[in-house]
């Protein structure tokens, strides 16, 4: 109920519409998007159809979202986020293991393969996590989500938002091709986000 209300508020504040259906139709998926704002994850999450959203966990940086109790509560209780360590990765807290467990339980994840927020001008280089996740779960579709204008609503370094209209475009899913190399796959995934950005 609170989560429903939160999603509706996020959509009203950013002008993003709720999707009638996800591009891959059903089942777990890996949503990946360009990253320029703290709002990004909330917007992808709020744009998903309700029953899909209930089964989707965003990945959030543990060093930021787990830093204090307040942030941890927002991330874990409202968004049901999976906290991912960016530094000091060990076997026990390994991001791939945590995300893999989510996918295996039939739920979806939201990822930002750039690893951190950019300045909104274009998409940065992808970290390799997306590739390793795709290799471990080749059957799960990877859905590119193009985010637009979020870097103008709440850019990196700004404290206050400006109420512009954002867009979240969910594009046709991609898969890791058999035998595809890591750089080739990451380049293709990144191109999928850059694609049609001007339409």
């Amino acid at each position, binding site marked *: 109920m609170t989560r429903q209300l939160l999603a509706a508020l996020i959509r009203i504040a950013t002008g993003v519409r709720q999707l009638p259906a996800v591009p891959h139709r059903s089942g777990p998926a890996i949503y990946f998007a360009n990253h320029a704002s703290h709002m990004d994850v909330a917007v992808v999450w709020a744009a998903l159809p309700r029953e899909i959203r209930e089964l989707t966990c965003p990945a959030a940086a543990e060093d930021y979202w787990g830093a204090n109790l307040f942030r941890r509560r927002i991330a874990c209780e409202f968004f049901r986020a999976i906290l991912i360590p960016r530094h000091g990765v060990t076997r026990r807290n390994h991001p791939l293991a945590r995300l893999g467990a989510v996918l295996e339980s039939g739920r979806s994840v939201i990822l930002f393969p750039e690893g951190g927020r950019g300045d909104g001008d274009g998409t940065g280089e992808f970290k390799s996590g997306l590739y390793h996740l795709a290799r471990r779960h080749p059957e799960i579709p990877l859905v590119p989500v193009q985010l637009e204008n979020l870097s103008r609503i709440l850019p990196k370094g*700004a404290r206050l938002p400006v109420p512009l209209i954002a867009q979240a475009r969910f594009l046709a899913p991609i898969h890791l091709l058999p035998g595809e190399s890591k750089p080739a796959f990451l380049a293709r995934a990144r191109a999928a986000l850059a694609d049609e950005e001007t339409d």
Partner: protein
Amino acid sequence: MDHETKWLLGIVGGILVAASVAGFLLARRARSESARATVANLNARIRSWWVMAAIFSATILLGPVFTTVLFALLSFLAMREFITLTKTDRADHEVLFWAFFVILPLHYLLVGIGWYGMFTIFIPVYAFVFIPFRRVLTGETRNFLANTSRIQWALLICVYAVSHMPMILRLPLRGYEEENAKLLFFFVLTVQLSDVLQYVWGKTCGKHPVAPSVSPHKTWEGTVGGIASAVLVSALLWWATPFNPWQAAAMALLVCLAGFFGGLVLSAIKRDLGAKDWGGSIAGHGGFLDRIDSLCFAAPLFFHITGFCFGTGMDPSPPGWLLEWIGR
């Protein structure tokens, strides 16, 4: 509610009923694919008109406070569309925050308390000066002139111009005390009716484009026919205004022409920004700014010329020979 207000609401209701019936009949007759698409868009427009007319009429009846809040919200949504399509940079972020959350509410507060003197200069003087001051603090010089001008234009069109409509309620007019809500209704009805009739005339007998590079659907036949018929209807509504029939016709002609040019100017801006519509919030119409584009430029003109010729002292009074000439 006085009898004249009831008549105005009844006339709008009658027009909408007639439009809905016409839309229903056209939908049954439409055969070809393109005709069906046109009629579907027409019916979406009519349905949106019902909602917009209901909201506008209800707020007018609820009084000046509600009317001011409604127009403040409209300004906010219009400026949101304007800035979303306009290119601004990271250095403009803080200025934009001020524009949306400080300048806009303060300006409408002035409308709400009816402080006319400050209302006229707050945006053209204080906001105009403040915006470049705040922007220069960021130290970013790239796009300085272009972006400060864009934000100043956004405020002038979406906030300053639009706010002249609720300000009509505060305009002291000779022999027309406590009746200003009807004048606001008359103004909005005239300009919007002119838009609708230009569309109807253009769709039925439009051939020669007026400004093909700016607005391909505007034709000479639609513009002349639409404005002429809107002026005629508005002149017949003189009893609801402080004007006599001739004055009502002249004011209607003025606001219809200003509305026509206002629509063209906002189309030109839209094309400059590479967009077809300002947004997608109103089914069949586009964005909020697509619906109020003609009102934006007509509102300040209507406000000041009415105040100038029929007011009691807000604006500087015109010389005696002019008053004699317009029949006062």
